[in-house]
């Protein structure tokens, strides 16, 4: 174990918990998904989000062993496990975002730290600070074009890619885990602004929110 403090944020089941969008659902509502909905928005709330920092080779071995998933080999790479529940995304040459089902993050961090021992690396839990949104539907890509400056054309943004970029006047991570789905990873404090943005920009596609 390195000389870093870990912190288990898990609580007893009875404690109420709120996703980044709790206030937004209350304030702006959740437009229903209808037959005319050409974009569907769904939050995958309360997942475990870890930031890994360190050298690619060292981390790759450890992540492979602990998570059964290697680091993406290329910049902007995104790898997802067979269940679709766990993913690793390249953020910078020495930084990756790992997303796992909520509650797994502490054990993952602990095991990675055991495995990495004295290597120089860092792991930060950011689960409370961001949330993941899914966009699907035929107009999802056009909605992204309205919002983000990054080129989301399939020839430039194939499945297995993820980028951090400017989204509306905030920032977001845009990911493409599968042919049909896009994902946004957004910061908690910007979540309401981005939710309102997506509803506004998606209105012409009769955007619906699945809860």
């Amino acid at each position, binding site marked *: 174990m390195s000389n*870093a*403090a870990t912190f288990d944020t898990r609580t007893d089941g009875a404690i109420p918990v709120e996703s980044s969008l*709790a206030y937004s659902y209350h*304030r702006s509502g959740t437009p229903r998904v209808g037959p005319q909905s050409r974009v569907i928005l769904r939050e995958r709330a309360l997942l475990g989000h870890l930031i890994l920092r360190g050298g690619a080779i060292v981390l790759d071995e450890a992540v492979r062993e602990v998570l059964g998933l290697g680091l993406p080999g290329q910049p902007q790479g995104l790898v997802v496990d067979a269940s679709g529940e766990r993913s690793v995304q390249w953020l910078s040459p020495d930084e990756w975002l790992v997303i796992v089902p909520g509650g797994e993050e502490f054990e993952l961090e602990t095991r990675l730290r055991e495995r990495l021992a004295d290597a120089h690396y860092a792991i930060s839990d950011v689960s409370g600070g961001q949330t993941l949104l899914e966009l699907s539907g035929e107009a999802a890509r056009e909605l992204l*074009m309205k919002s983000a400056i990054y080129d989301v054309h399939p020839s430039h943004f194939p499945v297995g890619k993820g980028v951090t970029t400017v989204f509306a006047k905030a920032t977001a991570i845009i990911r493409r885990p599968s042919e049909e789905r896009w994902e946004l990873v957004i910061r908690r404090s910007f979540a309401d602004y981005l939710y309102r943005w997506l509803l506004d920009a998606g209105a012409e596609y009769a955007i619906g929110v699945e809860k």
Partner: protein
Amino acid sequence: MSQSKKQANRLAKGGRIDRSRTLSFTFNGQSYQGHPGDTLASALLANGVDIVNRSFKYSRPRGIVAAGAEEPNAIVQLGSTEAGQVPNVRATQQALFAGLTARSTNGWPNVQRDMMGLVGKVGGKFMPPGFYYKTFMAPASMWMTYEKYIRKSAGLGRSPMEVDPDTYDHLHQHCDVLVVGGGAAGLAAALAAARSGARVIVADEQEDMGGSLLDSRETLDGKPADQWVAQVLEELAGCENVTLLPRTTANGYHDHNFVTLHERRTEHLSETAPLVNGHRPVRSRMHRVRAGQVILATGAHERPLVYAGNDVPGNLLAGAVSTYIRRYGVAPGNKLVLSTSNDYGYRAALDWKEAGREVVAIVDARQAPAGDWVEAARAQGIKVITGSAVIEAKGGSRVSAARVAKIDIDTFKVIGQAETLACDTIASSGGYSPVIHLASHTGARPTWRDDLLGFVPNLVKGVQACGGANGTYDLGEVLAEGVEAGVKAAAATGHAAPAVSLPQAKTLEQGPAAPLFQVPHEKPTLRAPKQFVDLQNDVTAAGIELATREGFESIEHVKRYTAMGFGTDQGKLGNINGMAIAARCLGRSIPEVGTTVFRPNYTPVTFGAIVGRHCRDLFDPERYTALHQWHVEHGAEFEDVGQWKRPWYFPQTINGKKETMHEAVARECLAVREKIGILDASTLGKIDIQGPDAREFLNRIYTNKWMKLDVGRVRYGLMCKDDGMLMDDGTTSCLGENHFLMTTTTGGAAGVLEWLELWHQTEWPELQVYFTSVTDHWATMTITGPEARKLLAEITDIDLDRDTFKFMDWRAGKVAGVPARVFRISFTGELAYEINVQANYAMHVWKTLFEHGDKYGLTPYGTETMHVLRAEKGFIIAGQDSDGSVTPEDLGMQWAVGYDKPFSWVGKRALSRSDTRRTDRKQLVGLKPKDPKVVLEEGAQIVFDPKHAIPMPMAGHVTSSYYSPTLDSGFALGVVKGGHNKLGETVYLPMADGQTHEAEIVSPIFYDPKGERQNV
């Protein structure tokens, strides 16, 4: 409103209009009719409306001149309602729809009878260029008054005063090949690029793509050219890799092939976008295109001839006459005189004749014009007068005659007697000018070509021009050039284009043109009736000549003196003629004089499209903490701190009356000092720092020492730039031997993280340390006041014993059942605990604190109370009490500076420069107003001698100032020159209202100077 009139000028057949349907519209209060396919301009001409506007400066009546973006006169205000007002629309670019309502932009009270007409007539002699400046600038103070009246009558269009019901947006586009212009060249280029598989966008500003092919006399493969257009458009529309954008103007060409396209999506349908499925679609959209390659196929604009009276309604461009006849089925008059210097102009006479109207004569400036076009005209029995030009148009509100004379272009003289030909329309053609505006936006200066009598664009990398934009006018060559450009562009983006077989173009052979940029008059230019060069800005040939005589030799100066090519016109019609006239007057060649710079936007763009969706609630991001909903529900007033919305204060309703801010803040302050308050401090920046060199890094980036901070301890630190000036401050906690949690100011979070990365990545990459933002991960709640320990003890398993959990310690445990880190730090001077929990649990913890806190008088407080409390303690706010010119020593914070640290930390060296050692630097002090009722103004200047003559030497200013309910007095922090040595002295604050406040320089710590309360 008077009754509708017949469309007197509408031809019985021809044109791309739908005669089966009739659309009613209103212009200047009068009702008219037109057809689908019309523009507002073609419909006005069909109805015989001669005067569409008054001119900008001289208020002369003006009619429609052109058929496209280059129209200088028919600039109208649209809108039947206040909210629907749209200024600066060219009637030639506005599709007609049922119910369209338009007014002239200029002309007050109306175009027929104009107040300024009088001035205009007088001014005919007395308004030289620079008239307004020369006349109204003195005295300078009165300019604002004159300007108001001049603007009212000149009229530049006006914005709506009510909320726009429409919505607008942006679309971020990326493509391999962007083709600007959907005429012959653009379509050929698009076809080639599309077939290569490249991602192609074609933008065309008109209602229909096809450009000049839509009204061409030429055939392709023996068929009318518009059939080829339809066939190409069908193929392109079927390509998945092609986006066709009609009604879309490329209005700006920016760095690195970034082009903004303004798409008008519903402007052709109705005033406000019609509902679709109950939703109002966007009215217009800005496409922000990043293109691999750009093909400029923007065509060419015809140059009018410059002759006396060339602005009287009924003077049109020759090409526009053809367009109105062939595309819209409108003949804008009955008796035509055509004045031309080239073969292109002949088309108008042939079309006019075919429309069954009378061609009085073709007046050709060339001595012996010959060739297909001239023969064709003669074969139709049209009289051709050679070596001559229309030297003057006669008429007031409509052309009544043309004065025609022999001219000598070389000596710029009229030869012999002029004859007068009765007519109602004069069409003129001085040749074509390539549309080089977009190419000029890149900063590349165009090149003059003598053979073309025009400028062609000079191109930066990644862009090509083809067809008219490149000075190529022969249809067969235009198509070939388009294909070549398309193939090249595709190849440059890695796409091989298959061969494109082009249709055979049947065109008439062109003869050479004459270089005629201004037609001579019997009188010298300065005495002749006005010869307009720039109709939109009322610039005359005489004005340009005068400018050159007054010493303006650079074309850029001539432009500014005369206003030629200003504003929305951007020199579309008049620039080449104007430059040529300036060149003649200066005795230079046109390339020597050069051209002015065209700037974005090519044509006006509505603000809505520029703003897009970034307006109203979405104008700027609002960042919320995890507790925002609670604050809203408890009536918080919010303050903007960066993009965060922070509770400012929580006004309560007491005895049915809502507290003022002053009352609420006083109540909140006393609650903290006497009982307990709670603050949402989640917005503080938080950076997770890990690595074996974390400590060393902190030691270098902070001014104070970090090597001996134990796990479980917290330290306050100052961060300076390398110039020694304070940049940010905050506490950093040691979580593990190699693990720290840094906090920053709310506004400084992103900047500090970037700052740490800057030093790590550029100067000290050998240090093993990583930084990760965890600002949003943690919610932070500060409970503070004498009762804080009692409250926290009720809901935590952490031992709060004052001797084991001391001031500046942190402990982990559970609060309200939630894992938490609790930091015993204080920004109020009272006993305080900062509770950090993962943000998803914050609301539960916050509410639990209130469930237990009621009995202790737990009071939520906002940033205003926080400010009062911290200022009472002399705690600074970086960025408020400091401003980038303040050192830690200026703040009296030497205690937080480790002068003897081994590494020369960031900012240290600068603290021994002579400037930072000055004893008269502005230093932070407390200011106690002599009158306790006075709350000094933040930002107020401080002087030592209020009797000093103005300007008084400034000695400093107030940085923070509040009323303290605890002290029952106003108090302030401020910076004063040499203030640290002036305790007890009096300073003065002269205010704008004439009062002068007095204050005593005191210690900045107003409350609990020994700091006992936070240590209890």
